[in-house]
């Protein structure tokens, strides 16, 4: 039986340790060979959290993820659209996900997903240059989500939150320790990033989850803009 996870638009079943579920906005369609299943009249898409840092963060007990029905989300590092498609289920018909990636090869796949889902749009742009896509995204969004696995991912994240995140909105940062510095211990890097996030004017860290064992040396930071 499906059970809602906290107040999130995400569900789970007791027996699936690596799976979450979202209500499928596009019944009958699956995009990444994920399983579809019916429960009391609704169709759900299975979500393999070992392929998704957001999913892993939820499984690891994040107290808040900041993504609600009707939210506009700016998703940086959307890749083929795997996690973005679940965010699209979570925000529902009245919400929207702006999916940005700078690699043409993955945007090619992303376009096909966005064409099938009316609350998603693809953007081929460099997240390091927020001003370059100001005509392509709304002036303010409710959530900025970032998963770019880049050396300066913290800088990119803060720039985008400064430019596009509304006051009271949530910023989610999936951090890959190895991309920041291969020589340092992940734990040290997480601690340092946490301090830098707290130091940034207007930002507070609401929660932070180490994603082990779903992802090694990764963490998900959940921040709020005051």
């Amino acid at each position, binding site marked *: 039986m499906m059970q809602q996870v906290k107040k999130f638009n995400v569900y789970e079943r007791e027996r699936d340790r690596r799976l979450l579920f979202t209500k499928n906005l596009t019944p009958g369609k699956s995009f990444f060979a994920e399983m579809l299943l019916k429960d009391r009249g609704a169709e759900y898409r299975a979500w393999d959290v070992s392929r998704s840092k957001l999913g892993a963060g939820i499984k690891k007990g994040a107290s808040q993820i900041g993504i609600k029905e009707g939210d506009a989300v700016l998703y940086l590092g959307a890749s083929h659209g795997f996690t973005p498609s679940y965010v699209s289920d979570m925000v529902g018909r009245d919400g*929207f996900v702006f999916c940005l990636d700078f690699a*043409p090869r993955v945007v090619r796949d*992303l376009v096909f997903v966005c064409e099938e889902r*009316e609350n998603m749009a*693809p*953007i081929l742009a460099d997240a390091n240059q927020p001003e370059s896509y100001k005509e392509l995204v709304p002036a303010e969004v409710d959530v900025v989500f970032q998963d770019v696995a880049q050396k300066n991912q913290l800088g990119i994240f803060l720039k985008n939150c400064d430019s596009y995140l509304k006051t009271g909105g949530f910023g989610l940062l999936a951090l890959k320790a190895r991309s920041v510095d291969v020589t340092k211990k992940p734990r040290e890097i997480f601690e340092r990033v946490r301090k830098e996030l707290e130091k940034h004017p207007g930002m507070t860290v609401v929660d932070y989850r180490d994603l082990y064992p779903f992802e090694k040396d990764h963490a998900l930071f959940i921040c709020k803009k005051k």
Partner: protein
Amino acid sequence: MADYSSLRKKNLLLAKRLVRESVNPDLFIINAVNNAEELQRVQNNLAKRLREWYSLYFPELDKKIQDHEEYITHVLKGDKHKLLKEWKVDECMGSELDKKELEGIRHLAESIRGLYEEEKRLVEYLEKTMKAYSPNLNTLAGAVIGAKLLRGAGSLRKLAMMRSSTIQLIGAEKALFRHIKTGAKPPKYGHLLQHPLVQRAKKDDRGRMARALADKIFVAVRIDYFKGEYKGDELLKEVEVKLR
């Protein structure tokens, strides 16, 4: 909630256009070299299958011919009894197979031969493309290694931005990472190990040779990227003299 449907339409159109415009010669080269590697992998696997299968009929041939292509040529010649004499096999361990059985084996051998032909065509294509797109790199590294370097960097532009010490290690990323993480011995070469000049150098000299080659490739790639004059032959000579 605002209505984003017109913004969505605009973004879909723009993204499609940008994807279309991103297609370039780097991608032709990267696809070709990936395909060449894949063909080699498939050839190898299928050749092993063929050897297993044909050995029901003529097991001795497997040991006598190591080279897959040559093995296939012999399988396709057909008549085992001639081959037995040719290879001086007195007591063949293989069973006699009837026509129907041999037919299946023959088809497989023909398919694999086709894959070798396909690979040759692909390498010819790579040579032509590399020569036109990056002539200096092509001369110094050869089409296939040159293409692998380009793939490792992501594009000719990115390759032209790399230092020669980085170029030297393209293709050795795993060993490099192991070195950083565990302090294991640092690698001396990646794809350049396959280069004839490095292969011909004495074992102890290979690192030095790869280094000299990388230095000149560095120059070659910059000339190619900035569309300078062709200097490939000169550069190659400057590396060749180091062989002695």
